[in-house]
């Protein structure tokens, strides 16, 4: 049985692009709306790609900017300059 990972983001202008990037880059991802936040669940692994978000925002984006919109997450984290990965080891 695979565990699901999840990430919950505030409904800010920048986070809209992050959510769109996550949904585009992770085929199994599903978004649920809550008051002022969006929770995305995915089986096993979820990746937030720097290029994907930057292209939607129209500007350079550092994966660390994720922290400005992040409310909570579930999963083991692996991050570098190009992506932020959530997966259960």
């Amino acid at each position, binding site marked *: 049985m695979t565990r699901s990972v999840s990430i919950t983001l505030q*409904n800010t*202008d920048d986070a*809209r*692009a992050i959510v769109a990037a996550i949904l585009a880059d992770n085929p199994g991802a599903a978004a649920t709306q*809550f*008051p002022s936040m969006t929770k995305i669940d995915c089986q096993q692994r979820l990746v937030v790609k720097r290029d994907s978000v930057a292209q939607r*925002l*129209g*500007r350079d984006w550092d994966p660390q900017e994720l922290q400005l919109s992040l409310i909570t997450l579930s999963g083991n984290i692996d991050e570098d300059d190009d992506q932020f990965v959530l997966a259960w080891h």
Partner: protein
Amino acid sequence: MNIDIKGINLVPRRQTYAHIARRFGEDRPASRYEEATYDVQATANFHYRPLYQPEFEIFDPRRTKIAMSDWYKFRDPRQYYYATYNMARAAQYQVADRNFAAVEDRGMIDAIAPAWRAKIAAYLIPLRHYEWGANMNAQLVADWGFGTQITSAAAFSGADRLGLAQFISRIGLLFDGGTGEALTQGREQWLGAPQWQGLRQAVEDSFVLTDWFETFVAQNLALDGVIHPLVFERFDRAGMAEGTAGLSMLTAFARDWFADHSRWVDATIKTAADESPDNAKLLSAWAGSWIKRAEAAALPLAKHVLGDAGYGDVEAAVGELRRRGRALGLSL
């Protein structure tokens, strides 16, 4: 005592403005950029026509021969609206300001060989007049253009040109110790020195174009596409041997700006060219003739700064620009 606080989920009755939802085909949240640009400009129920151009309405797509089924296809890849534009430029300004402070602090301008200092005064300071001209053209596009996506971005680019002119002036003031002498001489060069007259004439001719999209292509693709890489990349690099590391720090803002500006210019031209073969033909004709003018204007300037080697630099810059134009769908 137990206080039971219930949470109520308030769902907005609308996610965005009605006209934006109509454009999307559904009511979904729109970004600030989308709300700041889509369908902002009026398209009907105008009051009086411009007295100087009574054949057109105030906003009129007929002011250009470029034809678009939808003038809101020109999405700016940078998605600049007032807030993001100011934040981006403020960040760039801070970096440039620190560079100026560092250069002044270490006296890096004094380290430049005197002969090359005179060259810099000749090739860089008069460019503030070119930038003023570019502002004029940008505001023409903002005024006569159709569709808020283009006109808004054009107005921002106009402000950018004034910023560039101000920075060039600031460099001049560093050179003359704040007296303003460098700026006066720069103006005399722009008005009278032989190496500038080709460019000055090209700029002045661009002022009297009647099709604003041609103005856009002439200024942003052709003239900028030759002059900026020539002056801020090639002349700058040539000066390294003469101790101009400090100057390179001061002109870094211009290189960053050109890369940012070109993203918008390329997207706009590509969108117009992709729309129809007629548009592509028109754009190619404009680009072709204005790139030739830019090349002719750049040659005497390059010769003045780099000698005969300058011709090779202009040729390379023009070749690079034509390649860039072809990637956008133009036949050059």
